[in-house]
């Protein structure tokens, strides 16, 4: 299993905004347990999908040189459930970006309906204010991750330049 919770980018405005799409399908094992006979996408995984969309946007803004870690969920509200067959859009915008951190505002949509709002804080952990040190290797944006990112850009090259 790979921990990637969106399928493709639809828009990518460097340093500003990213929109990613996730198709929800009954082939996803966990939906059969969440819940039996009533499969709905867990809200926690929509937060993860937004965090990945927004995290890549924040990482790209510093050319993937920083280790971008989800540090805080400022707000997460959901207005309706997402079911198999639905297509959700993670629309993330950067609100603040500094050397140490970033905040993003995110809206989750299904068709034209607003189904959730997720606002996040990311830390560039090498710049943390406590002065803690981490391994030099970028364990967030790994080689494997960068290779995957390339597949997104190749396919969506007309719309997206990363």
């Amino acid at each position: 299993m790979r921990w990637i919770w969106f399928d493709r980018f639809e828009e990518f405005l460097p340093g500003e905004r990213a929109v990613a799409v996730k198709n929800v399908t009954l082939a996803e094992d966990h939906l059969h347990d969440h819940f039996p006979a009533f499969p709905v996408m867990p809200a926690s995984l929509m937060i993860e999908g937004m965090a990945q969309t927004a995290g890549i946007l924040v990482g790209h803004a510093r050319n993937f040189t920083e280790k971008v870690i989800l540090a805080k969920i400022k707000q997460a509200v959901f207005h309706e459930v997402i079911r198999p067959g639905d297509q959700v859009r993670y629309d993330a915008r950067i609100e603040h970006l500094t050397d140490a951190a970033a905040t993003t505002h995110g809206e989750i949509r299904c068709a034209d309906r607003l189904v959730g709002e997720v606002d996040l804080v990311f830390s560039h952990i090498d710049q943390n204010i406590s002065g803690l040190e981490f391994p030099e290797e970028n364990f967030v944006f790994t080689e494997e991750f960068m290779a995957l990112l390339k597949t997104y850009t190749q396919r969506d090259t007309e719309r997206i330049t990363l």
Partner: protein
Amino acid sequence: MAAPSRQEIFKKVQQALVDALSVEEDEVREDATLTGDLQAESIDILDIVFRLEKTFNIKISQEELTPRDILSNPDYVSNRKLNPAGLAALKERVRHADFTKFAQDPDIDKILDVFTVGTIVNFVEAKLAAAK
């Protein structure tokens, strides 16, 4: 437009802290410490800074908030404690905090304890005055 009063600034700071830390309004008193009484973690500090920037339309640099260059300077710090020269440099930089208690045990891991709600109000008040 007239400059906001200290009470007006306090109210907005209070709201930012209530939102950022999920605390009750009456917990956010002038003398409450951010990391102690309100249990803010270091990432919350960044969240609070961003909220203050937005609320008051000001810019707050990392150096103003936590002077890492002072705290990591071997001339100022040994065994994670600030020496008198380091303390003087810190006071010069972070002018709106009360270092009386911190000076008794200048452990750099406790630096965030000097930040109270009142410190933030002082800080914002000075920033707004300087921006005029």
